[in-house]
């Protein structure tokens, strides 16, 4: 077993464990008798114990339960936003790669531009926009759901570039293959060629790019939430759990450790999975099936 393959498998195992634990957060909570919202001001910043496996935070809330619920939010945002970004990027990448010409050069210029921008600064501006000024009713704009939707929208709006570039490259190489040329010769419309003939073959690339995008989005979500512009407390996310931690590094360093470690593990897992999958797709890399 090649080392890369071993790493890929470890990543799959880790991803599955994390996703399952976070998805089952309410069940885990019930089983361990924890509550992620219950504050206990007499039990603030407790060290790990039987009642609180990882201890408590500055409001006496159970850290483990909050980590799992925070993971639900972070993973949900990551997967939903990355999926939207992937659909957007795949469409743009297919069109740029297959139709070529002017459209291609404009789309690729745009992609390069978005990558070259000071993106985080722009995301901060977007995250600070007051939704009520766009005609969203006050109570909707202040709800946690609107906060989620906003962060999904803004990370997806800028997360499509990697997908678009990779899918465009795949489309360019598929475009001149015999089965595609046969379809064109049989009179298939450009839309049909792209969606029925090229897209299925480009699907592995799309999946690799989506995995990368999930990691990217989770990082952006975490930093925006950390800066106080993403997911708003009391809804926990790995990013906003670290906001308070900065003031508590003298008294409770452990609070700063766990959420960051989970972000690191999740993003690394996404990247390792994408890398292992990409290595499998490359012919003759020795990591293929056989």
């Amino acid at each position: 077993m090649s080392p890369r393959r071993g790493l890929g498998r470890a990543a799959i195992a880790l991803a599955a464990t994390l996703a399952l634990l976070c998805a089952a957060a309410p069940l885990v909570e019930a089983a361990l008798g924890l509550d992620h919202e219950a504050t206990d001001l007499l039990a603030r910043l407790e060290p790990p114990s039987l009642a609180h496996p990882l201890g408590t935070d500055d409001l006496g809330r159970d850290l483990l339960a909050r980590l799992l619920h925070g993971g639900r939010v972070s993973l949900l945002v990551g997967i939903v936003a990355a999926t939207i970004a992937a659909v957007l990027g795949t469409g743009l990448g297919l069109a740029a790669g297959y139709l070529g010409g002017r459209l291609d050069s404009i789309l690729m210029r745009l992609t390069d531009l978005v990558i070259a921008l000071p993106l985080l600064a722009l995301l901060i501006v977007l995250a600070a926009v007051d939704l009520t000024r766009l005609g969203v009713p006050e109570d909707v704009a202040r709800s946690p759901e609107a906060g989620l939707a906003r962060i999904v929208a803004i990370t997806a709006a800028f997360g499509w570039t990697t997908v678009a570039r990779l899918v465009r490259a795949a489309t360019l190489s598929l475009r001149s293959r015999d089965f595609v040329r046969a379809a064109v010769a049989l009179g298939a419309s450009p839309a049909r060629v792209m969606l029925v003939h090229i897209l299925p073959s480009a699907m592995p690339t799309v999946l690799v790019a989506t995995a990368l995008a999930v990691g990217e989005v989770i990082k952006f979500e975490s930093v925006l939430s950390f800066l106080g512009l993403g997911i708003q407390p009391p809804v926990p996310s790995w990013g906003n759990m670290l906001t308070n931690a900065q003031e508590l590094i003298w008294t409770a360093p452990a609070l700063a450790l766990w959420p960051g470690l989970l972000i690191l593990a999740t993003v690394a897992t996404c990247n390792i999975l994408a890398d292992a999958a990409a290595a499998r797709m490359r012919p003759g890399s020795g990591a293929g099936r056989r």
Partner: protein
Amino acid sequence: MSGYLVRRALQAIAVLAAMSLLVHVLLALMPGDPVDLMASGDPRMTAADLQRLRELHGVDRPVLERYAAWATAALQGDFGWSRSFRRPVLEVIAPRLWNTVLLMGSALALALAIGLPLGIWAAAREGSMVDRVVNLACFASAATPTFWLALLLMMLFAVRLGWLPAGGLPPAGSGLSGGLRHMVLPVATLALVEAGTYARHLRAAMLEALAENHVRTARAKGASRMRVLLVHALRNAMIPVATVAALGFGGLFSGALVTETMFAWPGMGKLIYDSILGSDFNVALVALLFATLLTLLGSLLADIACAALDPRISLAEAGRE
């Protein structure tokens, strides 16, 4: 070459114009308007005063009209007044621009100094333990949230060990060593999260370059292992790395924003963040434009480096397409 530069300059102007319009519209959607903020600072203001202030600052006019007025003034070199600093915007930005360039430049240099040797080392010993460790470290580096690494380094070196200051600029008169001490943690944070990308890309490019005919010829002629690696393979392998660097300036600035905010480093990133939260929109807008200009300049420099490394790339053609 000069034609290429002119074209890039025109592109940059177009980008800045589009960016200023976009940000202007977005800033109009921010909570709170500047006049309300002024009023909250002075309880004696009457409704009539507020109305006069609104008219004076043009807050009551449509966004596009305000943008036109701003753009006309900006083209004449007047970028407006900072509400929170009570000084012209440019005076606020100038020293911070230098601080950010200093931070980004040092971090990029350190990231390359860490990443490139590791990439060469890993490629030279493909499949070995070294390669695997470097590979894992690269994944970890790319996946580490910048703000968390900043927290960890602060916890270890400023709180636990007390070796380095936790942030801010050195007090006046602390000399060169004092200045350097304040730079260590921010620069290290930013460099460590960037280094992995360079190591990974250089490793992949080196492996590709090492398989090429000219490298085999060099080996056959009896060139030493070091010479093959550093002279024959490295030059070609640096081309994709320069491309990555060219595309990476936006990300580098994002990292700098977080690092500056964490370590209270008075640079452009912290200024943008603070001015948006503090509703100092004149500063936010101009700072964002300067940040964009900075990243565009960065990618231009990396593109020129690319062309210098690769004689096949001609800048005169690259911009045309």
